[in-house]
């Protein structure tokens, strides 16, 4: 459940770090979904160079989000919803940069599907991240073109199209869910558009946002001291069952023997998000750093 001020909780942030996404079913109210369906259809036509009733200026890349889409637009109302604004603020801060958006308009009975991919160039090792919001303004039934995505894939250092050979991954998902559902993806999450076997057109609005400030403790930290563990929280020694580590040590079955390396990436990202350089999950980083420190002292 979101915190009282609509920002995310510490454990929700930990879930984002582990899975690479958060999902909020039916978050957007019915009436706004209805208006967004119309507005996004017109925005899609405008972006495609077709005749359109969408008249507002299209935001340019690099614009602060607060300056994108004027009052009176349903997209503006969507972005200003406290629940949406709270999610954005928790992950990429106050007034992030508009990178780009797109309306993925998938006609009924579309047989084309994308290969699995990662958007843009992301193969850096710094822990900062963009988010991509995926919003579905109407119900999406199974097989009706819901986006395919791979939980736990976001921290892998791969090229954008380098994962296209994976037709099926154990645990991958194809979105299905109620109107108004919003998902927030880490920019590295592997995903792909799917065939739409239904008779109904499918609309999905995607918005990429860049942070303009360090993404450190931007969420609601009321529960932070209670759940943030220290390095001694070790699954083979004295594990807590109520801590952030319990979330971050969760891996996907498709990780196979790489699970512990994924845990190390989770811990690294949590260090960045919390500013705690000593944070660890199951002692992997701390053990290595103690060796390095010992050798360094020995050579001094």
């Amino acid at each position: 459940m979101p915190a009282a001020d609509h920002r995310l909780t510490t454990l929700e942030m930990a879930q984002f770090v582990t899975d690479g996404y958060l999902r909020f079913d039916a978050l957007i109210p019915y009436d706004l979904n209805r208006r967004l369906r119309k507005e996004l259809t017109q925005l899609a036509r405008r972006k495609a160079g077709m005749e359109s009733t969408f008249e507002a200026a299209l935001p340019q890349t690099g614009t602060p989000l607060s300056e994108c889409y004027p009052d009176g637009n349903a997209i503006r109302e969507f972005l200003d919803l406290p629940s949406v604004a709270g999610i954005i603020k928790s992950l990429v801060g106050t007034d992030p940069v508009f990178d780009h958006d797109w309306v993925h308009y998938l006609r009924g009975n579309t047989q084309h599907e994308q290969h699995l991919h990662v958007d843009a160039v992301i193969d850096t090792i710094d822990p900062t991240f963009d988010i991509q919001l995926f919003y579905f303004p109407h119900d999406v039934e199974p097989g009706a073109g819901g986006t395919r995505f791979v939980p736990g894939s976001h921290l892998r250092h791969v090229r954008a199209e380098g994962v296209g050979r994976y037709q099926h991954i154990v645990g991958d998902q194809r979105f299905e869910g109620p109107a108004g559902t919003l998902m927030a993806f880490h920019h590295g999450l592997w995903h792909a558009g799917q065939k739409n076997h239904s008779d109904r057109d499918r609309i999905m609005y995607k918005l990429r946002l860049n942070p303009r400030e360090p993404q450190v403790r931007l969420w609601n930290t009321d529960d932070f001291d209670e759940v943030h563990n220290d390095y001694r929280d070790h699954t083979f020694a004295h594990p807590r069952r109520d801590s952030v580590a319990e979330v971050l040590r969760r891996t996907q079955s498709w990780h196979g023997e790489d699970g512990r390396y994924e845990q190390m990436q989770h811990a690294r990202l949590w260090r960045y998000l919390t500013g705690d350089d000593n944070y660890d999950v199951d002692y992997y980083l701390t053990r290595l750093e103690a060796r390095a420190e010992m050798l360094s002292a020995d050579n001094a």
Partner: protein
Amino acid sequence: MIRQQILYLWLGGGALDTGVVAWAFHDGSNGEGPSLPVEEPPYRSGVAAMRDGWFLLQSPRSVAPKPGEEHYTNYLNHEFIFERRIEVTGDGSLQ
């Protein structure tokens, strides 16, 4: 005439009898040969595929990580490629 079916199995570990974590199927018989399920792994392991008549074409060798990359992850490491040869009746000029 003979056409290939190719099956990629990515396993959770380097041993051929470890579990399937991902897969891809490419059918050179254009549907004349047997198909595979898509909603769940077609086989439990690489060995299970061999027992169903798939022939191993390539298995991955273990590669030491580059210095500085020991603890990062990227692509699926354990990629095994299998083939099955199918007798087809078409003229081979597949669409």
